[in-house]
């Protein structure tokens, strides 16, 4: 079953949270940011080409124009493939692990899978970002030597930056599944 709700990101942009429950121990939470607007794309392109025409008028070299077209194309490809993240999703599979995926505008997907044995907890943390203080969700990884220590903090939803209300929904969903591993009889914990 899937449900979708609208929220706002930390910078005021509308985002959508979609929750799907695949089974009792498997949940998928996806945050979708706004798509690339035609407005901003045409504004950027016109700005570059106006600058190119201005330079051409100054130095009468047609190389400037072709360079401008080239730069626009390459810049657009780089932006779509490496910068613009459309959707960030979290797949929590109890007893297997947590999978974090970022889907870019060009279709590229970058995935990281963290095994359940390495996950200590999923918490909401505060951070100072530019001139604001924002909340972010992060996964705390277990330190193999020190059972009480944290070896690494993996921040989630870094590009869409949802606000606290959205984060609380995601946090509650994750904790329901993480609690199951504490209640289940653990044979692997006996060392």
């Amino acid at each position, binding site marked *: 079953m899937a449900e979708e709700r609208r929220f706002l990101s930390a910078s005021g942009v509308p985002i959508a949270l979609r929750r799907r429950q695949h089974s*009792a121990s498997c949940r998928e939470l996806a945050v979708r940011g706004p798509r690339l607007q035609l407005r901003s794309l045409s504004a950027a392109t016109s700005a570059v080409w106006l600058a190119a025409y201005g330079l051409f008028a100054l130095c009468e070299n047609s190389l400037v124009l072709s360079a401008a077209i080239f730069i626009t194309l390459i810049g657009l490809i780089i932006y779509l493939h490496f910068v613009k993240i459309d959707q960030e999703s979290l*797949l929590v599979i109890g*007893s*297997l692990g947590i999978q974090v995926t970022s889907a870019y505008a060009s279709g590229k997907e970058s995935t*990281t*899978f963290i095994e359940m*044995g390495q996950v200590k907890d999923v918490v909401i943390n505060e951070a100072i970002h530019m001139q604001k203080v924002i909340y972010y969700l992060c996964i705390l990884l277990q330190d193999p030597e020190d059972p009480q220590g944290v070896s690494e903090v993996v921040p989630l939803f870094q590009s869409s930056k949802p606000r606290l209300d959205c984060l609380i929904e995601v946090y509650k969903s994750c904790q329901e599944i993480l609690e199951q591993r504490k209640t289940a009889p653990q*044979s692997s914990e006996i060392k």
Partner: protein
Amino acid sequence: MVLKVFFPSCCSSADSGILIGRWISEQNSAVILAVVHFPFIPVQVKQYLGEVQRVTKVSVSVLGSWSNSKQEKEESLSEFLEDLGTIFCHEPWIQISKEGDSKFWSCSVLQKHSKNPQEEEIILVYYDQRKVMLSHLHPPLDTAGPGAEDASKLSAIFDTVARSQVLFMTDRYDEGPIKLTHWQSDGVEASIIVELLKQASVPACMLLTLLLSLLSGISCSAWKWNSWVLKFWPLSFLWSKLSTCEQLGHRLQHLQVISSNKKAQNQNQLMRKANIFVSLLIDVALGILLMSWLYRKNRIGHLADTLIPVADHVAEELQDLLQWLMGAPAGLKMNRALDQVLGRFFLYHIHLWISYIHLLSPFIEMILWYVGLSACLGLTVALCILSDIIALLTFHIYCFYVYGARLYCLKIYGLSSLWRLFRGKKWNVLRQRVDSCSYDLDQLFIGTLLFTILLFLLPTTALYYLVFTLLRLLVVIVQGLIHLLVDLIDSLPLYSLILRLCRSYRLAAGVKFRVLEQQDGKPLRLLMQINPLSYGGVVQTYRLPTYSCYPRDSWASLCKKLFLGELIYPWKHKGDKQN
């Protein structure tokens, strides 16, 4: 607790039979390796599994039953399969059944001796057996320690499949008592060319080993001759200064690594050997390309012809520079006498250098022609030769830098010591600190006189030092760029990069799961795919070590050395002694 079943996707269309694989009790997961078909004799199956266990050291056992019924569910078959559970007595006994062409299978677990009779949730994870078998898991660098073994559950699964290769030798079409289905059963797609290459590779490999052993024999004897020759001081000094020799030594080491007869122990060593081999091959190919370009249309002759005029031009520019310094450079007023002395000294030095170059000019073309032939040893050797030629041609700039630096250094030390005298202090060598000291009047008088002389002569010396240091830094930067390029070619793991491009599943950073279509009441279906290592990760893991490490000094210590007039050697080699 949740039970995880790892099922190979190649067995999805197999006929009914029993499942064999490994049960990992700590993780409550079953890794299924193959399906044994009817008819079989249980004793023979157990015998076969015992043999496999002995050879692969993987605890393979019968895990459950698999029924693939094309029509309606057969009651007698399911009872028969349950009875098999008593014969093979594995705890828990997994029963998977597929009806017709349905995607959704039913999976149930029989626990006879379980204490809690509650229903366990089952997760069905499909994996591509061939890719998981060939893949090599790269743990993240910071957790690669002794504790990482138990922390990574996935490595156990990869390990199980990789080590069970002997299980995949027999097939259901074989004539033996055991008929198995696994990834080989579908028929491995192969091209005739690949098969022919595999057949031809055995004699080719033997030939290559023979050639390489010959080469390594030659290189070993050359090495021994070199180390005997290097005992003589002037040659060893020259050897250490020329970067070509370093590069040649480095490549000889690589050749020795490749041509050794020992088989590579583990994955890392195998990749290292392959990387060195491909790097050498590309290097030599590029070098031969460069050589063919140079010798066509006698370009090397033209190069030799332009070398002398270029050296002359550089010397002329230096003479103009010195004339400018001897006048009033940038409007600064120099001390005329010192200026003239230093300027004339350096001008005479340039005159000597020009004479030597003109003396050598008839031989330059021949020397360059023969030296250019060594470009066939590799592009890196050619670049090193270029760097050495630049060093030799700008040797006079290096000399000027050393003279200017030493003069300036002496002046600075003199000034600092006399400054202490001016204030009435002295450097205590024993205690390594500044102490107050009472000087005699004549000591003070002479000291102050010398101090003023040195102070007023400082701008002249400082200007010469500045100009020649800048020139020297320019040459060092050019040489440094060439060495950077050489290092890049040396250390780039080309074979690993090409492997990552073409067979990305061989280098795995981890796995990724995709949730397939679900149906209520059926177990959760996931598809496990291999997440390949990023290109940056590949370069970082498989980088070949090089012989130079830089930078030697941090920016702060470099500036301090420049200010004090100490000689700087920006590029350090690993073999140099620390000072």
